[in-house]
């Protein structure tokens, strides 16, 4: 659906990373983990295209004033990387934004009894909080493995901990948690579990590729959430495709990230294509 949304808050939560809360229509409460929105940053023609952002959280807020009606809201995390996100970061409470969403196919939450290991890198944590929340609600054991270059790239860990999720962190410079890649901690956990778990990951390509490899080694299911350059978000422009498992230059096999994804089984994709 397309709607006009009012910004409820917009704050820098770590250097360069922002968290925005926005109003949404009642129906938006049905958004599922892994879905995204397309945001029109302003009404001008530069930037021209909408920007895709994962839904970080969805909820209902009852304003403190007496007689106030409960209001559905959603949140998104974003990193200021260019003109569009810089403009977003300059917006304030009560500013309006034009939103399309929730869009795309999100995470499959699997069987409740099996342990769920969630791996996020930097801004890749954005779609994983709602996932963790839903998994916890369904009584799945959940652990989070958050990686980044420095401590500034490790976002919203407190929120995950508040859900009761055990969190492991690793940074390349050792400024928070283990020094190195968070996939090392992931492998140790998988060894302890004797390979009985489901993986969920979102983050930079290198991390996703590494997690997909680990999933293949341990023979366990793994879902990854991809990013893609996209113009429309509704499957029309076909700009955001990713190579599927059968892909080769001679026999191309492309999957549409915005409609078939953004979440895919890692075994359905071609890695390093």
């Amino acid at each position, binding site marked *: *659906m*397309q709607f006009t949304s009012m910004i409820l808050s917009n704050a820098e939560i770590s250097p360069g990373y922002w968290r925005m809360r926005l109003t949404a229509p009642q129906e938006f409460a049905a958004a599922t983990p892994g879905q995204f929105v397309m945001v*029109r940053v302003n009404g001008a*023609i*530069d*930037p*021209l*295209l*909408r920007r895709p952002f994962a839904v970080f959280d969805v909820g209902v807020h009852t304003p403190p004033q007496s007689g106030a009606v409960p209001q559905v809201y959603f949140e998104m995390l974003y990193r200021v990387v260019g003109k569009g996100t810089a403009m977003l970061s300059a917006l304030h409470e009560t500013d309006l934004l*034009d939103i*399309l969403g929730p869009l795309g196919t999100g995470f499959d939450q699997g069987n409740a009894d099996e342990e769920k290991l969630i791996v996020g890198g930097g801004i890749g944590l954005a779609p994983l909080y709602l996932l963790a929340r839903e998994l916890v609600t369904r009584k799945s054991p959940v652990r989070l493995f958050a990686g980044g270059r420095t401590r500034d790239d490790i976002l919203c860990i407190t929120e995950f901990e508040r859900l009761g999720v055990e969190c492991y962190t690793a940074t390349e410079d050792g400024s928070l948690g283990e020094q190195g890649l968070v996939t090392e901690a992931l492998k140790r956990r998988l060894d302890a579990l004797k390979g009985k778990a489901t993986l969920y990951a979102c983050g930079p390509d290198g991390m996703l590729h590494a997690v997909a490899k680990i999933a293949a080694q341990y023979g366990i299911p793994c879902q990854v959430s991809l990013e*893609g*350059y*996209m*113009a*429309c978000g*509704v*499957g*029309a*422009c*076909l*700009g*955001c*495709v*990713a190579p599927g498992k059968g892909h080769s*230059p001679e*026999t*191309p*096999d*492309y999957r549409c990230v915005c409609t078939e994804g953004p979440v895919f089984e890692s075994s359905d994709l071609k890695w390093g294509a």
Partner: protein
Amino acid sequence: MSIVKPDMSVNLAGIPLRNPVMTASGTFGYGEEFSEYVNLEAIGAFVTKGLSLKPRAGNPTPRIVETPGGMLNAIGLQNVGIDAFIAKKIPFVRTVNTPCIANFFGDTVDEYAEMTRRLNEIPEVVALEMNISCPNVKQGGIVFGTDPACAASVVAACRAVTQKPLIVKLSPNVTDVVAMARACVDAGADSLSLINTLIGMAIDLKKRRPVLANVTGGFSGPAIKPIALRMVWQVARAVKVPIIGIGGIMNATDALEFILAGATAVQVGTASFINPGAAQTIVEEIEAWMVANGVADIKTLIGALEV
């Protein structure tokens, strides 16, 4: 006395349209993708994604990049192919009481003609739009739409096998668009749509590489409107067939400018990516503009530019 309901209908080479606003090929899927956001029966017509005999997987990524006021795309004509179009897309088209125009292309003159034959047999397809901005693989890869003789031969081959209105979509990547237009009309085109995208390119300075995997791509969006307007104006003065204006139309003002320049109808392209309901919004805005400006019949605006 004020106008209550202005007449927005136009006739496009024998196809009556309730209004002149259509969607542009490649920006509106096969119609169904947008049905949640647009009342398809509020617009004049919709044009399918470019179809070919066999399905096409398209180009490697990145396929699109934004530039100031526009975007570049190198999708690579990804489409489901004519068989899947008939089996999977036509059932939806049948449910919509709005003319469906099939856009198509081929690698050779024979493929274009075969596509025309196939589309000619589909009752739900009321007209055909030929994309001639494709290389002719049998003639050293020369783009059909950049050589008048080459364009004429492929248009004539398609003309010979269909009675349905045949629209030829012109490439702007030519020295003389009027010469191309004349060649296509002489070869039997019932209507011309212009412009297709301009070939452009974007560079990532940090990586010292082109942004698009295909290196070059088609440039579209509001940035190209002045070029499109100029070409529509030139062509409309030179040929007698109806013109469909395309190029960066974002709102009713843009659409009306094309109509003044000589277009009988317009196509909304990139704008649908930003606002899936753009075409319908433009129809509503045109109607409001006509009421506000005392224009009872949109046909009186076609080519009404005072130079």
